[in-house]
């Protein structure tokens, strides 16, 4: 059971890291639906570099750098060129899906390194993710930088009029979001499941994207949602802990996705919206023209 708990927390951390970066992205008004692509690329880069150099830090650095670079490309298209953010995000996802399949397939199989070092029985990414939640909450709600991020996400014109560099803040956020997505991919391929496979994420990035909506753009709610989803994901892989012998293991694998749709539906109902009030950034997905 302890093993199940530890694995659940590791799974939660992958969701959390990707979703936390996207949360910051979205608070600045930029939507990146290609989050799964950034995770795929970050995870593949981390895996390939770690395998070829035998060094986990090198792998991590590669994953983070690739994620940040892709985040910047998304920013270039969305902020500087004022393109359609959905088109850019979908482009990044399909590009990543295609290229990582090609680049990673000769390396299909286990990483071949000693297990990622644990800290008090847990992956260090778990602590890192929790600390990042606290840091992001503090920056967003207690600092002038956070105020600037929130203001460009709500009303970029008003933010610009008060002297905020809208493009600069948004670039900062998309690159930060990209690095965390790359880190999430690296956490997956180096620690959670150190085996490279074709399209190894199979929806993790999209679940992370959905988690941002569930969280109502609040980092602490996001942490709770990630823990819940991590546990649910792990239980869907090991249903014998809950209901042994009931339904096939394939049906259990559909549960996290079905629950995601159900929660998305509930939080979209007028009842939920009026009662809890979604804190959706007003300028989310809208290109800013100064």
């Amino acid at each position, binding site marked *: 059971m302890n093993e199940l708990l530890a694995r659940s927390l590791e799974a939660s951390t992958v969701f959390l890291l990707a979703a936390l970066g996207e949360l910051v992205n979205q608070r600045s008004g930029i939507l990146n639906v290609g989050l799964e692509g950034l995770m795929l690329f970050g995870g593949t880069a981390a895996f390939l570099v770690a395998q070829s150099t035998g060094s986990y830090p090198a792998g991590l650095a590669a994953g983070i750098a690739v994620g940040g670079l892709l985040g910047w490309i998304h920013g270039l*298209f969305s902020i500087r060129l004022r*393109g359609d953010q959905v088109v850019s995000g979908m482009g990044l996802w*399909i590009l990543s*899906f295609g290229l990582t399949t*090609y680049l990673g397939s000769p390396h299909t199989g286990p990483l071949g390194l000693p297990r990622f070092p644990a800290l008090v029985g847990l992956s260090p990414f778990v602590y890192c993710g929790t600390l990042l939640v606290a840091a992001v909450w503090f920056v967003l709600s207690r600092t002038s930088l956070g105020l600037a991020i929130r203001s460009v996400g709500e009303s970029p014109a008003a933010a610009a009029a008060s002297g905020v560099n809208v493009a600069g803040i948004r670039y900062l956020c998309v690159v930060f979001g990209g690095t965390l997505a790359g880190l999430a991919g690296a956490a997956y391929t180096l620690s959670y499941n150190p085996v490279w496979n074709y399209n190894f994420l199979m929806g993790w990035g999209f679940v992370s994207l959905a988690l941002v909506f569930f969280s109502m753009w609040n980092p602490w709610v996001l942490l709770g949602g990630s823990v819940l989803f991590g546990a649910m994901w792990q239980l869907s892989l090991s249903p014998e802990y809950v209901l042994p012998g009931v339904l096939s293991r394939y049906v259990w694998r559909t549960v996290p996705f079905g629950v995601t749709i159900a929660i998305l539906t509930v939080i979209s109902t007028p009842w939920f919206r009026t009662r809890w009030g979604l804190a959706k950034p007003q300028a989310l997905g809208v290109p800013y023209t100064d």
Partner: protein
Amino acid sequence: MRIGAYRLSVERAEAPSPPRVALGALLAVALALLLASVLFWTPESGPWTAYRIAFGYAFANPSGLGATVHRAVYLLLCTLAFLIPLRGGLWNIGLPGQVYAGALAAFAVPFWAGARELGSGTAGGVALLSMPLAAALAGASLGALVGLLRAKLAVNEILVTMMLNSVMFWLVSDFIKEGGAFMSATAEGESFTLPEAFRPPLPLGLPPSAFLGLAAAVVVDFVFSRAAAGYRVRTFGLNPQAARYAGIDPVRVSLWVFVLGGAFSGLAGYHYFAAVPGLYKIPTNYGYYGDLSFYGIICALIARGSAVGAVPMALLFAGLSVGGRFAQGALRLPFGVDYAILGLLMTTFVFSHLVDRYRVVWRRTAPAPTSAPPRPEGAR
């Protein structure tokens, strides 16, 4: 940038002309092929050899050509499934899930007819017609769920369709693996093979779904350019707020574009798994076929929403994926050349989309001389 008396600047172009859009699409494909040549580069052979092998197999080899045409029909149906919601401003990326739903529904017909146990069975016209109908209905039902959630509650359709893709992927596994209802009696991990009586006729070597796909492409373009229903969908896609003021019901539009899109994806699932000679089953690697449906997104985007314009795109991309995979084996390249080309095509499309929105403008900054400058005294 200033060059002599001229200033060169890049400005936003509000409405690119149709020839410019067509040129942008062609350039996007050409650039993707140029970039893909890097993937084909090996110490033994250059990209030209690889392209010669790929296109030679896809379009000049009889068995390769057959595979290309069948795949093109599949891609065309997937293109229609993406294109119809796109004209309404909605993204249907649930193509794989709807394809799997269609395949399962199509195989449910012979399963209920007892054909799995008999291995042959007798099928009349009703059973043959029921298979594509069941497939279209299953895809449409999945699409209807997405359309309703989008229309009634504004639930993000990208997230819902992606979740449904994963749900359907695992449900197919449940049906064809580890004693699943459709599992083959002789091979683990794939469905039973469709008895001959349940295979559709092949006039001109093509299943009826091929003709249906081509006819549908013409009808879809006609509806979008000439019919009131198409006008309503386009208006909603361009400006949902204005559409509401014009009395267009957003619920009906969102619902129907997803129902139609889902129906075409379902038919694509029927076509590839139940109507293509040589397959007639849901194979172990069904995920590969499901993911190929994403080419439908590229076809629709590069054809800029024209269903008929997507036909040559579907044929080209089908040839590229079939031939690319053949060249991959012949030249011992890594797995995934076809997916890599898919990624490159999407990237070049994004850039061509961008190029459409901007134009390069030359402007004279100094006044043009009105007459020849006076000659200095003494000059001849």
